[in-house]
């Protein structure tokens, strides 16, 4: 249960209009709870009542009606003196840094003033001020200066130090970076985030800048004409706004005017997956496809670094010869590689402009995340694996999914008429891509996932032979979203992405009707995806909780029944290989499992050496048997390295 540190209840503020009997309502019946440790962002245009609300909440002006209580104590009806006592739990940082510091006071005086008001002893004050000035990144010889001798960024640091002087629990940030230059704004945002996690602060942050809000906030409240028109998790408000005003604000913010200089000049929706365009496209999906955000954990997992030196000098069998690791990574068009050994970061490298915080398209590794999500809901009894897909989504009843069960779709043994040929523009796969919005829909038909999937039909008995078919996963994503009544992205976010302790948001692409592309549309950072692999390695227990059901993880590692026929491309690479719960199983003695996506996306999990490998690539063609073999020997060499 989250602790409420501030309860704003039905606050209204009216101002009398001069020379008339009328009132102007600046804040209109606002109720918000602020939870401990969160960042609540307030957005709205000028005149929407943001600052008046803040002034009411912090007891600077009294609301006309309604009440505010801080740490369980109400401000209403209190004398000035006791409001002052309560206020030491609050810190204030205002928009104009130089205007908020008395020009006749030195930096020392400015920071120490709240401490003097509180009646602290002189020696204590000096110690505290010196601690604070260092903490906000200024040196103690700046204490004698006055505000006009400081730059705007330095003034704002002083204002932050002053706000933190009395060790407040809650800090009000009223447009803290609006009057600062971009490069200085970044310094201040970094500082605010650092202080928040070090001092366990709760921020009430007002800004008209959506970038700033999106960067820091856990929740967002949108204000218009004094009313709070929308409040919710920042990921869902900013990606899936409900109120028309929020939507307008976001569209305006993200929309480029008719010519979009951010797309490469040679961009082509029919060929972005192929090289060399994919080097850009896989890292920039949200620039050309609609996506929904999957918000990260508020308490990210902290990696321990333990570099595995053996990897630096690793020599890997590469067809007839041997190559060094770095050579092989370059030859296989690697964008990112992360290796975890015993849960610690053993190796990490990025190429082609990728960074630890860049997202990369997972392609079909997305399927393996969906598999885990089904594992969770099947274990809870929400979904019955032996029911057909059509049972849950009636639109699918007349298609092949009217007879195929959830378990059969998860294990890819639905007997379906479907050619998974990525290069044939007339294959069902290409039609699926068009339905997902991943290619131009030149046919003119009204193609979305919900109109395409019901047209697929079958050709025999289900459950007999393995047949890899991407449409199965999209149908499953539709099912789970329908059963739970929530967007697929939100389910991944709540059940997997947040519990994992992810550091960054992930995204999933949407078709024209807003259905998630479960078969390959997820983008994540390499590190965060490695956490997912680690959770499987730990039998589903990770970040102090059972994220995935142990029985499901064990069943996945055990692989599919031997009675299911396996095609040659799998058995030639892995003689005992099979496919289970949207994961590939090598069937070797080491009991490795892996997730794979076209153009060289891999996650390899080897329980025998407790190794997780994530590799993102941008190989020019979707499938290449030579590359598949090289990757297997690469991963086995890394796993065995000691």
């Amino acid at each position, binding site marked *: 249960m989250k602790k409420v540190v501030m309860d704003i209840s039905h606050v209204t503020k009216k101002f009398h209009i001069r020379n008339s009997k009328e009132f102007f309502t600046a804040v209109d019946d606002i109720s918000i709870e602020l939870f401990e440790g969160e960042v609540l962002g307030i957005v709205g*245009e*000028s005149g929407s009542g943001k600052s008046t609300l803040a002034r009411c909440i912090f007891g600077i002006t009294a609301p006309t009606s309604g009440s505010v209580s801080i740490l369980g104590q109400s401000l209403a009806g209190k004398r000035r003196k006791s409001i002052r006592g309560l206020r030491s739990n609050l810190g204030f940082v205002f928009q104009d840094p130089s205007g908020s510091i008395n020009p006749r006071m030195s930096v020392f005086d400015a920071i120490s003033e709240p401490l003097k008001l509180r009646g602290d002893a002189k020696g204590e004050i000096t110690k505290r001020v010196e601690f604070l000035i260092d903490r906000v990144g200024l040196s103690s010889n700046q204490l004698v200066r006055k505000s006009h001798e400081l*730059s*705007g*960024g*330095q003034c704002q640091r002083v204002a932050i130090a002053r706000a933190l002087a009395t060790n407040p629990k809650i800090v009000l940030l009223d447009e803290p970076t609006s009057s600062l*230059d*971009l*490069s*200085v*704004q*970044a*310094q201040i*945002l*970094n500082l605010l*985030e650092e202080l928040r996690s070090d001092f366990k602060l709760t921020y009430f942050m007002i800004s*008209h800048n*959506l*970038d*700033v809000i*999106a*960067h*820091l906030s856990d929740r967002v409240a949108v204000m218009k004409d004094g009313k709070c028109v929308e409040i919710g998790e*920042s*990921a869902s408000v*900013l*990606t899936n706004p409900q109120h028309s005003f929020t939507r*307008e*604000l976001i569209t*305006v*913010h993200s*929309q*480029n*005017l*008719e010519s979009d*200089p*951010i*797309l*490469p*000049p040679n961009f082509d929706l029919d060929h972005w997956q192929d090289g060399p365009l994919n080097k*850009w496209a896989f890292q920039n999906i*949200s620039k050309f496809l609609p996506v929904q*955000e999957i918000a*990260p954990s508020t308490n*990210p997992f902290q990696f321990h670094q333990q570099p595995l030196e053996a990897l630096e000098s690793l020599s890997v069998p590469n067809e007839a010869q041997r190559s060094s690791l770095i050579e092989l990574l370059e030859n296989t068009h690697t964008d990112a590689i992360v290796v975890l050994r015993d849960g610690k970061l053993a190796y990490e490298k990025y190429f082609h402009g990728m960074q630890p*915080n860049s*997202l990369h398209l997972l392609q079909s590794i997305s399927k393996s995340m969906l598999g885990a999500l089904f594992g969770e809901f099947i274990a809870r009894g929400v979904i019955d694996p032996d029911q057909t897909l059509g049972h849950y989504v009636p639109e699918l009843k007349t298609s092949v999914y009217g007879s195929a069960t959830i378990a059969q779709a998860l294990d890819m043994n639905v007997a379906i008429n479907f050619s998974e040929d990525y290069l044939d523009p007339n294959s069902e796969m290409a039609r699926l891509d068009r339905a997902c919005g991943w290619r131009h829909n030149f046919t003119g038909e009204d193609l979305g996932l919900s109109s395409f999937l019901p047209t697929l039909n079958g050709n025999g008995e289900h459950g007999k032979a393995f047949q890899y078919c991407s449409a199965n996963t999209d149908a499953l994503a539709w099912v789970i979203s329908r059963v739970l009544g929530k967007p697929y992205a939100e389910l991944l976010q709540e059940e997997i992405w947040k519990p994992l302790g992810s*550091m*960054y*948001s992930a995204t999933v692409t949407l078709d024209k009707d807003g259905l998630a592309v479960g078969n390959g549309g997820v983008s994540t950072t390499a590190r965060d995806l490695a956490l997912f692999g680690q959770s499987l390695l730990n039998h589903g227990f990770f970040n102090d909780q059972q994220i995935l059901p142990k029985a499901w993880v064990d069943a996945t590692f055990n692989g599919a029944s031997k009675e299911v026929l396996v095609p040659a491309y799998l058995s030639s690479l892995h003689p005992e290989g099979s496919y289970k719960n949207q994961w590939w199983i090598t069937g070797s003695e080491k009991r490795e499992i892996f997730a794979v996506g076209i153009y060289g996306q891999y996650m390899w999990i080897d329980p025998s050496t407790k190794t997780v490998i994530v590799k993102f690539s941008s190989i020019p063609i979707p499938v290449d048997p030579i590359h598949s073999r090289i990757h297997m020997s690469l991963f086995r060499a890394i796993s065995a390295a000691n």
Partner: protein
Amino acid sequence: MTTILKVSDLQVDFMSGEKILNSPLRGINLEIEAGKTLGLVGETGCGKTLTASAIMGLLPTTASQRGTIEFAGHGFLEASVMGAIRGSEIAMIFQNPQSAFNPIFNIGAQLTMVAQRRNIERGRIPELLIDRLASVGMSDAKRILASYPHELSGGMLQRCMIAMALISTPKLLIADEPTTALDATIGHQVLGLIRSLQQRQGFAMLFISHDVSAVAKVSDVISVVYAGRVVESGPAYDLMNNPQHPYTRGLLGAIPSAQKRRGQLTAIPGSVPSSLKDIVGCSFAPRCALADSACSKEPPLVHINQQLIACWKVGT
């Protein structure tokens, strides 16, 4: 392509008698092609607005200017020809619409004064003003013309200012932070309006802003200024996706977003130098992670692939 404006090595010093107080512009090089938009981006105090003032010939008398400004059809711009060009061939819109209008005259009176100055026939003026206001999306022209500045919102005033700038058809429009004082939704409308007017009328534009994303939205070419010099210049796409100069990289890395949520933003340490007169060598060196002894000399602006870059550490 014809070049409409060419600024070469523009330098401005502020003087007190013979003594140089500050050198806010230390080498601005710009080239704008007809019908295209050049985005000039940089932080406070880097010389963006002063560049615009120099082009308009509006520098204060204490300023001493070197370098050349060449305008198509007029050769080098000098004070003697500016009277004929300013406002008619080169028009400008300013950052703060509230303070750009005179509060004691109504909009109609102010637009009429401008029209008279452009030698437009008296009888044609009312009709022309209604037409110009309609072109900036204000169909209620009669009411607008009768209004005083304080009776209109910031967005409406900015539209009026654009209408005023376009009374005669300029070849070059200088827009100095035209959306900074406006709310996001209104700013976006104004940006869209400027773009569509540009497409219809074909004027070139010098678009000045500290807002990198606004510049990226409208510009064909972007020039980045730092401490009074252009440090990087190139086609908008190349510059945004492949910034080369350490300052440009820092600036683009400093933009917060949901994607980079709570991750460290690239913060450039320190701040823009306030006095530029005693700078020796590369002005960015004190804040630059790559700086070494080579940077004690001033780097020239040189071509590297599609871009012009002034940095010793790029391309070597």
